[in-house]
């Protein structure tokens, strides 16, 4: 079972660097190209949300844990920012969401499953999984 964890400041440059480190890490190395791309995209959207919203324009830490188990990649993202807005229950992306933004939540909901958000000891905790074998959804 591959596992890795990273802790960094939630800003766009650090998010990019963290994603590039994950690309070289044990969990993503175990995945095929399509599943790897999907996991990186969901992580990017989740971490961009933290960078944009959690610290209200400031910056703070975020911790990402990745675990590969039973044909899925499980992710856990924890930040100490303000209470995160729910990712909502809409079905996929709204094609009429033409103004900039608004695409990220749809991508998360389309590519990730088992999404759980909760607040714990002053932290936002977001958990999700992305299919990591060929039995998964869109890849």
């Amino acid at each position: 079972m591959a596992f890795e964890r990273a802790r960094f400041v939630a800003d766009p440059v650090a998010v990019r660097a963290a994603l590039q480190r994950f690309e070289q890490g044990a969990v993503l190395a175990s995945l095929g190209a399509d599943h790897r791309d999907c996991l990186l995209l969901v992580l990017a959207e989740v971490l961009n949300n933290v960078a944009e919203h959690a610290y209200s324009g400031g910056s703070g830490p975020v911790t990402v844990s990745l675990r590969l188990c039973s044909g899925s990649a499980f992710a856990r993202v924890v930040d100490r920012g303000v209470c995160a807005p729910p990712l909502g229950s809409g079905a996929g992306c709204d094609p009429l969401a033409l103004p900039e933004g608004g695409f990220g939540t749809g991508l998360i909901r389309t590519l990730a499953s088992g999404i759980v958000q909760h607040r714990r000891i002053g932290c936002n905790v977001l958990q999700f999984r992305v299919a990591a074998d060929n039995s998964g959804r869109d890849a």
Partner: protein
Amino acid sequence: MQLSVMRETGVTVVRTEESRLDAAGVLAFKDRLREAVQTAQGRVVLDLGSVNFLDSSGLGAVVAARKFLADGVALELAGLTPAVERVFRLTRMDSVFTIHPRVEDALAG
């Protein structure tokens, strides 16, 4: 964020030189793209062949780029890598743009 611009009669080809179009680079991309296309006439073809990672902020910048164009100028896309094509498809933005497999196809069309 580097863009190269090639102008021919009736078409402007703008090619990205970066491998990532993400939140960290999106402001520079929008600035460069605006400079590249605001005086374009006819068609603008954005060649994304170098990009192997595009997130929603990058997608938003491409979608918003249409606002930089003069009336009657169309923004078309070419050279989408599999990861980039997926983002356009899942957000249904593939129905908003004319998408060519390669720049050569765009010029031939």
